[in-house]
C-alpha cells in the first residue's frame, strides 16, 4: 500500500489529488452479526458503478448463529477490484477491516506486509480478546508491527453520528458497518448514492433506522474528508477497467447458473422442473429458481436427494426440462437414478456445486474433488457428458450448453461448479436475448414407424416421445432394451450393441463441441498448465505473470471433461511438460494420463480455498528452470 520513499506518487488524470492504485484487495471482517456481507455487497455495487473490474468472495461461518465474538463466528467479504482484468478474489489483502478481535485473529495472516488494517478499538475489550484467544491486546504489542494500523473508536463515532434518531444503544451500534463503509468509500473516492437509495428502500418501514444508517454512512465519509489521518491512509483512486461496451450487472455463479438454465430452457422451448433437496452450497440455486415462476419455472423441494432427481426424471419423461441440483454427498445418493436416466435416454441436467469431501467434509469450503464421481460414479457402463464452469459468469454459458447437449443427445448432463463459483461475484455483460443460441426441441408425434429406441442417424439420439401423444404409447425402463423396439431383452448380442451405442452416442459429442483452444501462450512448447473449473482465474493470472517474466508456458482450460474435445490429446502432445493444478488429490490428471498416455503431472491443493496465484507461479518457475520432461 505505502509507496517506498522517494518514489513519485502515481496519480490519475481523473483525480489528481488522489493516489492511483492499479488494483486493490479489501476484506471486510467482523462478527456474524456485524453486517459484513451487506457492507461488502454495497462496496461492490459502488465499485462496479465506477467501472472497475472486480471479483468478490464471501466467507461466512457454517454455524447459523455462532456465539458472538468467537473466531468461528467471524464473517468476511472480500473484494478484488481494479483498472485491469480481474480474474481472482485476490491472493493477499491490501486492506483488512477488523470489527472485533476475532476478525483480526482469523484474517490478519492474509494481509500483505505493509497492508492497512482498520480496527474498531471499542471492540477490543478484555472479554472479546479472551474469546478470540489473544493473550494480550494486539493493538498494544508488536503483533501488528508489519502492518499500518488505523485504530478508530468506530462504536463511539457511530453513536455520535446517530444520536439524534433516538435509537437504543444496541440498535445504534448496528450502524457501525455503515460508518466503516462510509470511510472506505471516501478512501477510494466512491459515491454513496446507490447505498443511500438501498438503505431507504430496505428500511422503508422503519425510516428512523434508514436515517440512522445513512447518517452513519455520511459520518464515516466525512471523517475521512476532515479528520487528520495518519500519513499512510491516503485517499486513492482506481481508474475504470477497460470493459467491452454494454449493459453490466454483477452476478454470482449461482445467479448466472439460474439465468442460464432459464435461458437454455427457452432456447429449447421447454419448461423447467427443478427437483432439489437443500444442501450447502447448492441450495441458493433452488432459491433463485423458486423466484422465477413468471417464466414457468417449477421448483420442487423433494423429500430427499433421490426423490429430487427422480422427480426431475419424471418431468423430463413428461416433456419438461428436468433439472436437479446438489453437492457431492447428494450426487452420491442420486447415482442409481442417474443410471436410469442413462438407460432410458432422457434429457436431464445434474448440477454439482462441489464442496470439500469426503462424506460431509467441509460443506462451506470449496473443492473440485467430484470429477471422477461425475465421470464414473454409476453402476454399469453409464457414460454422461460432463462440463464445468470456470468463472461465475461462465456459469450462464455452461448452463445453456448443458441444455443443448441434454436435449440434442437425449442424455443426462453433469454440470460441475463449486462452492467458490457459487458464491463469488463479478461484473457480467448482459447478453441480448436475440443473440442467444436457439435449439428448439421437436417431440415425436408421428406414430408411423415409431419405436421408442429408433435413433437419429447422426446423433444416435432416440426420439423424445411424451405421454399424451396418441399412437406413441410405449414402455421404457431400466431393464436392458432391444435395439429399436425397446422391449425387454436379455439377448447377449443386443446388450453388447446397446452398450456400444450408448458409449458411441456420448463419445460423438466430441464432434459437436468447440476444439480445445489454448487460452494463453503458444500451441506447443515447454510447459502447459491444464486446468478445469474454478482454477481458471488463478491459473490465468499465474501464467500471464510467468509469460511476462519470459517463461515458456501456456494455459489450457478444459470446459468439456467428457467427452474431451477431439484435438485435446494431440494438443497436449505438443508440450514437453503438462502440469494439472486441481483442488483435489489428482483427478483430471489421472484421466488425462489414462486417456492420452501423456506424462501429465498433478499440482494439488485441498485446503478448502482457491489456489493463490503465487503458489501456481512458483510451480511454473520451478518447472521452467528444470527444463525437459519430468
Amino acid at each position, binding site marked *: 500500500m505505502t509507496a517506498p520513499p522517494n518514489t513519485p506518487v502515481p496519480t490519475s488524470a481523473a483525480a489528481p489529488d488522489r493516489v492511483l492504485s492499479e488494483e486493490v484487495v479489501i476484506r471486510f471482517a467482523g462478527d456474524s452479526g456485524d453486517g459484513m456481507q451487506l457492507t461488502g455487497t454495497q462496496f461492490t455495487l459502488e465499485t462496479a*458503478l465506477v467501472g472497475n473490474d472486480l471479483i468478490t468472495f464471501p466467507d461466512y461461518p457454517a454455524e447459523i448463529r455462532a456465539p458472538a465474538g468467537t473466531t468461528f463466528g467471524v464473517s468476511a467479504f472480500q473484494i478484488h477490484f481494479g483498472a485491469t482484468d480481474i480474474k481472482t478474489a485476490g491472493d493477499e489483502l491490501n486492506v483488512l477491516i477488523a470489527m472485533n478481535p476475532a476478525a483480526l485473529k482469523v484474517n490478519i495472516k492474509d494481509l500483505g506486509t505493509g497492508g492497512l488494517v482498520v480496527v474498531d478499538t471499542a471492540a477490543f475489550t478484555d472479554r472479546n480478546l479472551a474469546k478470540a484467544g489473544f493473550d494480550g491486546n494486539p493493538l498494544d504489542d508488536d503483533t501488528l508491527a508489519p502492518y499500518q494500523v488505523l485504530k478508530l473508536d468506530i462504536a463511539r463515532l457511530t453513536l455520535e453520528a446517530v444520536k439524534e434518531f433516538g435509537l437504543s444503544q444496541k440498535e445504534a451500534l448496528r450502524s457501525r458497518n455503515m460508518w466503516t463503509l462510509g470511510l472506505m468509500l471516501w478512501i477510494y473516492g466512491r459515491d454513496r448514492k446507490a447505498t443511500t437509495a438501498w438503505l431507504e428502500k430496505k428500511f422503508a418501514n422503519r425510516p428512523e433506522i434508514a436515517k440512522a444508517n445513512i447518517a452513519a454512512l455520511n459520518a464515516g465519509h466525512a471523517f475521512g474528508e476532515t479528520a487528520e489521518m495518519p500519513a499512510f491512509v491516503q485517499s486513492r483512486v482506481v481508474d475504470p477497467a477497460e470493459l467491452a461496451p*454494454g449493459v453490466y*450487472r454483477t452476478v454470482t455463479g449461482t445467479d448466472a447458473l439460474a439465468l442460464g438454465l432459464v*435461458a437454455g430452457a427457452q432456447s429449447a422451448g421447454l419448461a423447467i422442473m427443478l427437483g432439489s433437496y437443500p444442501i450447502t452450497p447448492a441450495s441458493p440455486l433452488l432459491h433463485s429458481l423458486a423466484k*422465477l415462476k413468471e417464466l414457468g419455472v417449477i421448483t420442487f423441494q423433494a423429500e430427499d436427494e*433421490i426423490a429430487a432427481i427422480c*422427480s426431475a426424471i419424471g418431468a423430463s419423461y413428461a416433456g419438461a426440462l*428436468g433439472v436437479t441440483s446438489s453437492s457431492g454427498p447428494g450426487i452420491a445418493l442420486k447415482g442409481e437414478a442417474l443410471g436410469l436416466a442413462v438407460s432410458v435416454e432422457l434429457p436431464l441436467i445434474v448440477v454439482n456445486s462441489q464442496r470439500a469431501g469426503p462424506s460431509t467434509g467441509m460443506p462451506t469450503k470449496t473443492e473440485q474433488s467430484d470429477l471422477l464421481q461425475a465421470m464414473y460414479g454409476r453402476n454399469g457402463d453409464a457414460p454422461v457428458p460432463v462440463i464445468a464452469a470456470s468463472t461465475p459468469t461462465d456459469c450462464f454459458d455452461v448452463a445453456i450448453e448443458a441444455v443443448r447437449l441434454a436435449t440434442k443427445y437425449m442424455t443426462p448432463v453433469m454440470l460441475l461448479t463449486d462452492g467458490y463459483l457459487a458464491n463469488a461475484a463479478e461484473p457480467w455483460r448482459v447478453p441480448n436475448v436475440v443473440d442467444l443460441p436457439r435449439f428448439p426441441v421437436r417431440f415425436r408425434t408421428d406414430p408411423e414407424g415409431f419405436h421408442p429406441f429408433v435413433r437419429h442417424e447422426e446423433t444416435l439420439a432416440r426420439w423424445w416421445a411424451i405421454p399424451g401423444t396418441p*399412437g406413441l*404409447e410405449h414402455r421404457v425402463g431400466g431393464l436392458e432394451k432391444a435395439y429399436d423396439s425397446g422391449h425387454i431383452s436379455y439377448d447377449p448380442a443386443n446388450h453388447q450393441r446397446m452398450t456400444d451405442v450408448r458409449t458411441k452416442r456420448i463419445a460423438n459429442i466430441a464432434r459437436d463441441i468447440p476444439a480445445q483452444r489454448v487460452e494463453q501462450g503458444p500451441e506447443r512448447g515447454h510447459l502447459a498448465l491444464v486446468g478445469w473449473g474454478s482454477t481458471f482465474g488463478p491459473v490465468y493470472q499465474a501464467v500471464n505473470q510467468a509469460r511476462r517474466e519470459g517463461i515458456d508456458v501456456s494455459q489450457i482450460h478444459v470446459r468439456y471433461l467428457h467427452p474431451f474435445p477431439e484435438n485435446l490429446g494431440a494438443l497436449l502432445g505438443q508440450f514437453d511438460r503438462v502440469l494439472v493444478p486441481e483442488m483435489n488429490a489428482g483427478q483430471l490428471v489421472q484421466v488425462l494420463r489414462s486417456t492420452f498416455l501423456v506424462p501429465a503431472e498433478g499440482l494439488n491443493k485441498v485446503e478448502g480455498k482457491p489456489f493463490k496465484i503465487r503458489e501456481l507461479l512458483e510451480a511454473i518457475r520451478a518447472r521452467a528452470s528444470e527444463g525437459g520432461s519430468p
Partner: protein
Amino acid sequence: MTTTTPPVPLTPKDFATDQEVRWCPGCGDYAILKAIQKTLAEIGASRENTVFVSGIGCAARFPYYADTFGFHTIHGRAPAIATGVKLANPDLDVWVMTGDGDGLSIGGNHMLHVLRRNVNVQIVLFNNEIYGLTKGQYSPTSPRGQRSPSTPQGSVDNPVSPAAFALGAGGRFVARAVDTQQKELVEVLKRAHAHDGASFVEIFQNCIVFNDAAFAEFTDRKIAADNQVLAEHGKPLLFGEDKRLGLRLDRRSLSLEVVTLGEDGVGEDDVLVHDERNRVLASLLAQLEPPAFPMAIGVLYCDPAEPYERAVHNQLSAVKAKRQNGDLAALLKGGRTWIVK
C-alpha cells in the same frame, strides 16, 4: 404395439400389450391386471393419457402389460418419478404400481411424501407379505415369525400395516381389496381413480410360490364372509353369511368390538355406520385383524382436498398474471445495472 386410438369405446382387451406376461402361473397379479384393464375400459380412459409408473419387484412389471404409456423405474422411487410427471403435465392420468417391499421398505419415504403432499395419482400397492422377485425373503408387511431364506428361525420384525401407514401419512383416500374378489376390486379402483388427489389402494395379493395362502384366513371363500367386513359409506358395518355380525364402538375403551345382532339385546342401531370422511373411524377399521376381528376392505377413507400439482400450478399462474408472464430480457437485466460505453 402402437396403434391409433379407435373411435369406439375401448374394451379391457384394448389395454393389453403384445408382451408375454411373465408372472408365475396362478399369481394374484393376473387378477389385478385384469381388474385394472376392466377399470380403464369402464372409466373411459384414453391410452395416450394414461401412464403407469412402477419401481422394482413383481408388481413393478405391470407397465409392460398395459398398452398405455409406462415407465418401469428403480426400486422404491415410483412415487417420486410420478410426482415429477404430474408436475410437468398435470393432465396425465398417472398410476403408481408398487408392492410391499418397493412401496414400504426401500420406498417408504417417498410413499409418505406422495401421500402427505396429495399428488393426484392412484397408488396401487400389491401386498403379498413377501419379496417375490428376489426369491422369498420376508417383507416389511410379513407377520412376526415369518420363516424365509433370510429369517430361517422366523422374523422378529414387527410388520407395518399399509392402510394404517397411508392414513398416518395423511393420505386422503385409503382403500383395500382382495385380488380374487374382482367385483369389489374394480369398484375400489374406479373410486380411487375418481378421487381428486392421492389415492392409496392396498390389494391383498397371493404369492403362490413363496407365500401361498398368506391371506387365507379371511379370503378363503368358505370363511370369507365371517372374516371380512366391506366398508360402504352410509351403511352399517355388518358382515357374516347373513349379515348378523356387526362392529360396535366400545366407548369406554375407544375400540371396536364384534357383536351379533339379536344377541344380548344388540340391534342394528348399535352397529357403527361407515362414514368414509371420518379419519378416526378409518384408522380403527384399518387396524382390525383376523382372527379376533374381520379384515376391513372397501373404501376406508375418502376426504378429498386440493391436489399438490394443482396448487403448484395455481401459484405459477398467479405469479405469471401478476408479473405479466415474465420476460427473459428483463430478467437478465434485473438488479442494479450500469452501462459501459
